[in-house]
């Protein structure tokens, strides 16, 4: 199978998952025990208001009609009106999405910069003191909840030694990076142990692969061996592992945005739950689901581009 056919097949595979995501998000409001419209508006709302909202959300139609109504709206980018902000949900999400995306991208870059050299060092000198320290520290940070890590970084680097701001997003490239350093570091520290663990294991496997053993018997120096034969395959492993953990990264953003008061969609979904703002919750859940599907798709495509051996079936 050639690349074009692979791409076509891979893109088609996402369709059932996309339908599943839309269906799940659709069911969110329908599964609320009791009358969703009544719960959203509260006990003091008049019956007319409740009936109006029910009609607005299409809740008085038969369930299958409701679904197609919902699907049609989504395809037009119409996610309803926020009950809390009294504004278009899609509009509010689009305003805040850049914050979350910047945070996630920054965290990925930071994670790669930290985990790749460390896993490499640990894998090359398996069992050495470097390996022991890297593994010890990653077991320790794996046990640290992100919100606690974030608050401690705040106490240390924003209160006791005030290098970084306590909260907010800032404006302009460097200012934003400066504001996002501690949040991104928090996500990185909770993600790094998972990445290092998997990456170290696959690097060790690569170093014992036949082609590397062959190069070693040819008398290649250790440095050349790693640069020429291990690093490229290690890069593939990194891409895969990052793709697998993207969901973990997004979950991390929910907690970290709340801790650092960042105006992203992660903090927004938490505050929307307290406000019982269901259209907003639906919208954000949908965006998160779509992001994961798209990123997994991109990972697979990137993988097949990096590795000519990848099997297309």
């Amino acid at each position: 199978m050639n690349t074009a056919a692979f791409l076509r097949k891979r893109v088609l595979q996402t369709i059932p998952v996309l339908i599943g995501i839309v269906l799940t998000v659709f069911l969110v409001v329908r599964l609320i025990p009791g009358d969703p419209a009544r719960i959203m508006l509260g006990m003091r709302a008049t019956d007319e208001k409740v009936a109006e909202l029910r009609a607005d959300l299409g809740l008085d139609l038969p369930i299958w009609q409701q679904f197609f109504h919902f699907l049609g709206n989504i395809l037009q980018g119409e996610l309803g009106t926020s009950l809390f902000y009294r504004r278009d949900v899609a509009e509010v999400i689009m305003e805040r999405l850049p914050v979350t995306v910047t945070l996630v991208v920054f965290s990925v870059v930071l994670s790669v910069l930290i985990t790749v050299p460390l896993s490499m060092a640990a894998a090359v000198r398996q069992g050495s003191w470097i390996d022991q320290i890297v593994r010890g520290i990653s077991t320790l940070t794996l046990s640290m909840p992100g919100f606690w890590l974030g608050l401690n970084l705040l106490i240390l680097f924003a209160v006791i030694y005030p290098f970084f701001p306590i909260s907010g997003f800032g404006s302009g490239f460097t200012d934003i990076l400066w504001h996002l350093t501690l949040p991104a570091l928090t996500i990185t520290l909770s993600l790094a142990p998972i990445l290092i663990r998997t990456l170290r294991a696959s690097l060790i496997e690569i170093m014992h692969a036949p082609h590397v053993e062959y190069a070693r018997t040819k008398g290649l120096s250790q440095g050349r061996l790693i640069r020429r034969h291990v690093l490229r395959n290690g890069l593939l492993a990194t891409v895969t592992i990052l793709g697998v953990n993207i969901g973990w990264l997004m979950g991390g953003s929910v907690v970290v945005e709340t801790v650092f008061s960042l105006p992203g969609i992660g903090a927004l979904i938490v505050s929307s739950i307290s406000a019982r703002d269901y259209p907003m919750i639906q919208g954000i859940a949908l965006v998160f689901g779509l992001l994961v599907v798209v990123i997994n798709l991109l990972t697979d495509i990137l993988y097949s581009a990096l590795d000519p051996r990848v099997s297309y079936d």
Partner: protein
Amino acid sequence: MTDAVALPLPPAAAQPRSRVWRDHTGLIIGGTLLGLILLASIFASYISPHDPLQQDLRNTLQPPSLAHPFGTDNFGRDIFSRVLHAAKLDLMIGFLCVLFPWMLGTALGGIAGYFGGLTDTIIMRVVDTFSAFPFLVMVIGIIAILGPGLISMYIALTLAGWSMYARLVRAEVLVVKKAEYVLAARALGYQHGRIMFRHILPNVITPTIIFAMTDMVLVILSTTSLSFLGLGVQPPMAEWGIMIAEGKGFILTAWWMVTLPGLAIVLVGLALSLLGDGIAKILRERA
């Protein structure tokens, strides 16, 4: 021929003690740590120096001292006593939030793998959909439907966590169901239920238990995160995540309200990780 196979393995006790220690350092440390934490949580009311709910408004926000090893909070309550009393709740939540998804995932994964065909396709499509959402986002979405609280958290973590177990069990069942003893059981005309429980389940369960051990670390981190966000256990119950959330407002003046309760979570996580890795290592060596 036969005596080569029948060579007895040296009993574990015959190994020099230093070797047991060297091979299983993590397991021993993790097990001891978890044992101590369990004991501390069971006997919390005997070993805690103060009443966890007793307010003392003249001694609010006191830094750690001999009388208050972890300091006091904004109501003058002793943080160390509160951390000890919260242990029971946090450990129980962690355990149940692994047990429920494990049961659901094992059942559905087993059914999918055993029966195959349309049943398999339907269950696995559901698994795909459930794993498409980021774990925490899915949990938060379900809690949004049910409203914040402990029961919602159990349901949410079960629904969000089972798919990994289903994948794992299905893959194992696909291998085991081709084994001769299963074919033999089928040829004998045993019923599906009996074959699944007596012949297949015992042979597919080990990897799920190893996974459950590491999963429990992540689950405890998630449940404390949810309570921190105000979506899980509700105040005024003493729970580690809630205690840290309460301390969030005081990070400028009272670092101990945040840092010290969190150490309890780190300690539990560390104990479980070490224990899980150690058990996985033993099982791998046996296999």
